[in-house]
Structures are given as C-alpha cells and as structure tokens.
C-alpha cells in the first residue's frame, strides 16, 4: 500500500517535471514525503555521451567513469573531449552530446539568449575555485616592482593595483594590453574582470543591443577568447599578455617558464562556484531517471575526490594525466590538485581548497550562485536592459534545479552510499547562501538583492544604466 502511494507520488513528480509548471520548491518537498531508492526507475537512455574540456575540474566525470559509478547506475557513458566551449554548448543543444562539463555561465547565458539561445539546465555544480590569472614573464617583471614584498616574497593576494601602472604604460605607448579568457560567459571572464576592475583597470563593456559583442567598449585591458589548452602557447606567441584559465594551464605556464600566475580565484572570491554539469531541458524532460542517475554517479565521484582530506587526489591525478582526459604531465596536474599552488617558479604555497569538489556543499546548485553570474552579466553589459530583482530569481530557478539534485542525493542516502549530514537540509534549504564576504575588494554579495549589489561597484553598469 505504501509502495503504491510512493509510486503515485513519483508519478506526480515526474509529471510536474515534464510540465515544468510546479515550482521546484514544491517538487522538492513532495520528494521528502517518501521516495526511496527502490522507486527510482531504470534509466530511459542507457548509452550516453558527455563532453568535456581538458581541465582538471572535469574530474568528477572521469572518476565517475573510471570508478564504475556510471555503470553502477546502469549507464554506459562515453566521455569525449571537445575543442572549445562553443562547440561543446552547440553539441549539447543539437543533441550530439547528452550533457557536458560546462561553465556556470553557459546554461544561464543560453537561457537568457546571450549567444546561442537554448534552454539548458543544471542540477549539479562540479566544483569550487580552480582558476587563476597568469601574466607573461615580461609583464610580471614590470608588475613585481609595485607588489608589496615580505621576506623577499610577494605578499598574496596580489591585487590588480600593481598591474595598473603596467597597463598605463602600455596605453601611453599606444600599445594594446591584451588578456585571454575562455568564453564570453565564462567564470574566467567574470573573475578576470572582477580582479581588473577591483584594481581600477576597466575591462570594457558589451553592448549586444548594438551588435557589439567584443566586450571592449571603454576598455583599458582588451579581453578576448582563447580555448583553455591553447592559452600557454598563445601567450608564448605574444598574442596575449596574460590570461585567466582553469588548471592545469596556469601551472603549465610555470613549468614551461613562460609566465607567472599572480592570483587564484580562491583569493578573488573564496569558494566561488565554477563548472556545472549542463543538459538541455528537453533532454532532462525526456530522461528524468537518467538525469537523476547521472547526478547520483557524479555526487559519488565528487565525494570520492574529497574523501579523507583529499587522500584520493594522487590517484585522481594519475587518471587525469591520461591522454584521453586532461593529458598534461602528472607533476603539472598534481601541483594544484593536491592542495598546493606554484606562483613564481619555486614559490609553492599551500592552497588546500584550490580545487573543491564536494565539501562546503560544492555540488549543490545554489540559486544565489546563478544570480551572481547574472549580476556580472548585467554589470558588464551582456544583459543590456535593466532587470528587476524578481527577474534574477526567476531565471535562476529556471536553470538551477536543486530538486533533481535532492532526488539523487536522497537515493544515495537510502542506498547507504552517502550520509544525510553531507548534504544541505533539503526540507529547509532555500537555495540562497548567506551573504558572502570573502571577495578581494571586500564587497559583500547577497543573492537576494542583485540590484543593490550592482550599486556597490565603482566600475560597471548599475541597475538602470545603459550603454
């Protein structure tokens, strides 16, 4: 009898997912009322192809595959490296890929129609932190003169204040100061812009309503797109003076001796959300059980990655160093994945939380994370029209799907593969992190007041400003 009840409850849930009418919160609480592992049906689609970009934060996918977590869910997954973020997104949209390792801004950008318009959702956040900003040796030589030192070593975090005179010098000589980032809606773009703007360097505005998507209006530093694996060689060729990218491409610059990472994104915004696992909305509606099972496998992978204080990281690095995954040398990947980060050659410092995959609820898709990305899209003009606070909430709820995450987590708890304490309390979780204070410029972010947040920046569009 109870079984029947549960089944009908599940049917309701599935229906509401399909129709997409019921709000996520309601669905979430329905699930609390009694779905256990037995009820999670078999996967609708068993052969899946997921895309990724060669970055260490694709680790949950590689681990879920290598450790057999996907197979445990009855899923036969093929992982395929993609050329760049645009190709990856397009292939998820046209169905060549079932899902992919994505920049947090990609599902949001696609949903609001910045770039390719398509409904992409995410129920799983892949990691926190993991990026850094690197400048070429020449720039570092000039910059270093303005960086405060202690015991002969630069004091971290290094702010863009020390880069400002270098950029001014470029400007006075009539030379462009160029930096690379990986995609217009990438975390890296926003982090690089955040860091530059916090140091008084204008990174430029976008004006899509005027057809200008270069993002270089009023810019002191000209930012452009380069695929992550090509960053070091592009900087080596002198096309860009620096870049913001995920690992191992900053450590690669140190190993190659072509540049110096100056700041990690952990220092720009402590424990910032980074990649997500994105799927198209139509796919998710057609394959609800598959989606939950994929998230289950990835939660297990993330748990494994952070288990016993990163004890499994060396093994993970060995897997990632295989040529079909990240493929860089073991030492290069290990540098950041095992809790250290090498800035200038020889200046290796402990950054235990440089890559976070599970702790601090890293995998939970918080609405407030989505809203932060939307505020930055507005700040730099990618969203050209003023938007109300409610609009931010609405978009976040369309794209971020903690309801699906909750079903996966509960199934894992029921199977004894995870403990409830490791997850947010699903019954009461609002999806908003408390106001966050750990930004490099000490500005406080509260996800419930996006427009008030925008007012706090010296450089950037405010609620009503237009270009």
């Amino acid at each position, binding site marked *: 009898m109870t079984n029947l009840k549960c089944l009908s409850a599940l049917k309701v849930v599935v229906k509401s997912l399909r129709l997409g009418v019921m709000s996520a919160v309601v669905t979430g609480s329905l699930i609390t009322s009694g779905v256990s592992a037995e009820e999670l049906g*078999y996967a609708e689609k*068993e*052969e899946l192809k997921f895309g990724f970009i*060669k970055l260490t934060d694709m680790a949950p996918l590689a681990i879920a*595959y290598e450790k*057999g977590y996907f*197979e445990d869910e*009855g899923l*036969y*997954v*093929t*992982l395929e*490296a*993609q*050329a760049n973020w645009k*190709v990856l997104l397009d292939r998820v949209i*046209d169905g*060549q890929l079932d899902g992919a390792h994505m920049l947090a801004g990609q599902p949001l950008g696609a949903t609001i129609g910045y770039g390719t318009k398509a409904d992409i959702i995410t129920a799983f956040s892949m990691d926190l932190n993991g990026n850094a900003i690197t400048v070429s040796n020449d720039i570092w030589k000039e910059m270093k003169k303005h960086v405060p030192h202690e015991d002969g070593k630069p004091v971290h975090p290094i702010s863009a204040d020390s880069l400002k005179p270098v950029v001014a010098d470029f400007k006075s000589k009539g030379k462009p100061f160029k930096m690379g980032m990986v995609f217009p809606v990438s975390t890296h773009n926003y982090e690089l812009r955040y860091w530059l703007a916090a140091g008084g360097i204008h990174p430029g505005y976008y004006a899509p309503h005027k057809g200008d998507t270069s993002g270089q209006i009023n810019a002191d530093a000209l930012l452009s797109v380069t695929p992550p*694996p*090509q960053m*070091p*060689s592009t900087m*080596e060729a002198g096309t860009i003076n620096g870049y913001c990218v995920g690992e191992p491409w900053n450590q*690669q610059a140190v190993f*190659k*001796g*072509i540049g110096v990472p100056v700041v990690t994104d952990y220092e720009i915004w402590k424990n910032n959300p980074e990649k997500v696992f994105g799927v198209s909305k139509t796919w998710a509606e057609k394959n609800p059980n598959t989606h939950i099972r994929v998230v289950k496998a990835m939660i297990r992978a993330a748990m494994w990655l952070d288990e016993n204080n990163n004890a499994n990281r060396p093994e993970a690095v060995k897997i990632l*160093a295989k*040529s*079909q995954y*990240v*493929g*860089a*040398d073991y030492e*290069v990947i290990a540098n950041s994945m095992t809790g250290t980060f090498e800035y200038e050659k020889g200046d290796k410092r402990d950054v235990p939380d440089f890559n976070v995959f599970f702790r601090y609820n890293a995998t939970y898709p918080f609405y407030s994370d989505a809203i932060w990305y939307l505020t930055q899209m507005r700040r730099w003009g990618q969203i050209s029209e003023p938007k109300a606070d409610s609009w931010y909430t609405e978009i976040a709820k369309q794209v971020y799907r903690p309801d699906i995450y909750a079903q996966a987590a509960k199934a894992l708890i029921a199977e004894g593969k995870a403990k409830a304490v490791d997850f947010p309390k699903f019954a009461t979780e609002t999806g908003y992190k408390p106001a966050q204070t750990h930004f490099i410029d000490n500005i406080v972010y509260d996800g419930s007041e996006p427009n008030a947040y925008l007012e706090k920046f010296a450089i950037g569009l405010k609620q009503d400003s237009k270009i």
Partner: protein
Amino acid sequence: MSKQQTVPMIFNQVKQMNWPTLNQFLSATALPIVGIVIFLGLWSLMAKNIDTSLGKFPGPSAVWQQSKVLVEEHNTQQDKAEKFYVRQEQRNVARVAKDPSYEPKIRAFTGAPTFFEQIWTSLYTVMVGFLVASLLAIPLGILCGLSKNAYTAINPLIQLFKPVSPLAWLPLVTMVVSAVYVSSDPMFSKSFITSAVTVALCCLWPTLINTAVGVSSIDKDLLNVSKVLRLNALSHVIKIVLPSSIPAIFTGLRLSLGIGWMVLIAAEMLAQNPGLGKFVWDEFQNGSSESLARIMVAVLTIGVIGFALDRLMLVLQRKFSWDKSAVLR
C-alpha cells in the same frame, strides 16, 4: 626516363661493372637505407638543439619509445574492454532477473579510442570518401572527354572549385550534414559523414580532370577503328575509351587519394572528428612532455600510410593497365 634512373646507369657504364645485379641491388636497397640513416642522424642532431616549452624536440629514440607506449596503451585498453563486456553481461543478467521485460543488449566499449583505432577510422573514412568521389568523377570525366560541349559547360565549374581549400568546405559540410542527415538510429555517425564528404569534395577534381584529358587524347587510329567497326556508344566506351585512358584515370586517382588523405587529417583536426587528425590535435592540447613524441609517431604513421595507399594504387594500375610494359612510378 627520369634523372634518377639515368644516373646509376651512367655510373654503371663508367665503372664497367661486371655484376650489374649487385649494383641493382645496391641502388635499390642500399641507397634508400643510406638516405634514411642520414635523415635519422640529422633528425636526432637537430632534435637535441631544439628546445621547446614542452622540453626537447623528440629524437628518433623518443619517438620509438612512444610508439611502444602507444602499443601498450592499446593492449591495456583491450583488456579493459574485455572486462567491460564481462561486467555488462553480469549487469544484464541481474537486470533481467529483476525486470523480465527488459531486453538485454550488448553495447560497444565506451572507452576512448586508441591510436590504432584512430588509424582504422581515418583509413576507413578516406576510402569511403575516395570511392564516392571516384564514382562521380570518372563517368563525369569520360563525358567531358567525349563531348566537347559537355566539357565547355563543366570546365568553368571545375576551374572554380578545384583550387578551393577543403577546410573552406568544412563548415558548410558540417552544417549541411547536421541539417540533412537526420535519423533516430543512424548507420554512420555525423562526424564520419562530414569527414567523408569533405574528402570526397577534394578528391573529385584530379580524377575528373585527368579522366577528361585522357579520354580526349585517345589515339585517332583507335577512334577510326571504332568508327569502322560501327561500335555503339557503350561498346565504344568499354572497348576503346576505358582501356586507352586507364593510365590517365589512374594518375588522377592516385593524385586524388593523396590529396584526400592529406585533407582528411586536416579536416579531422579542425572538426574534431575521430581519426588520426584528432589524435594529433588532442596531443597538442595535452601539452605533456611526451606529446611531441606522440605527435611525431602520428606524423610518421600518416606518412607511411600515405605511401602505402599510393603503392596500392600503383599495383591496381598495373593490374588494370593493358600496356604492361609502360613504366609506372
């Protein structure tokens, strides 16, 4: 007769050698070996002096080392595949026990393709593209060769499209294939079709032009014979045109296959379609200290395969050619 052949002959006469067979053996075997040895020596010498940001440029020994690693990786992957199938069977059995309506199905191994699988993919793709192109180009070429009017009509198009780089076609082909080739259970993957069509587009022209030239320059006497015998159009083509234009057609085919092979590698790199080109690009992106050596293995493999394909065409040409005494090289 070309220079390369005349040189040893003059050498022979001057020296008045009594053992021409030994001399032939020397020139046929020893000289290439000398060439290769000099090349290897220069290569390892140069490699030592080129410092890239990924370490030293790989010399012959590093490349040999990596080729062994690639074989090893292939074998480990093979092992993994076997275990994968065992696990899958067990899972299927378990599921059928629980859910009798389930129809178990064996899925192909989901691991990454190894170097050797990539070679096979590339070979297969180039052959399909080449065959499609040849099936179009030879009849069209014969038509152009037989009819001056057809030639005048088609010639501007040939001249226009012949010099177009294959990579310019690629985005168009990709978009058209994804739009047109829609099926729920496709027999071929889209990436395969894209690569094969791009190869075909570039393989068309040399075959087409050479066939047309070959057909139009058939000996007048043969044409007169055909007229005297009052051969109908079909027998004319089969008995007279094809046999006499075989050498020209094969010259075109060999050129086409060579171009197709080069184009395919480039197309795979650009479109990220599976194959050797993808392997090269992936390794370049990996940027590990072994990447350059692995790319070098691929470069040499591409060369060897290109050479083998050319020889294969030569063998076929000999087989089909009516004039067995003609010098083919």
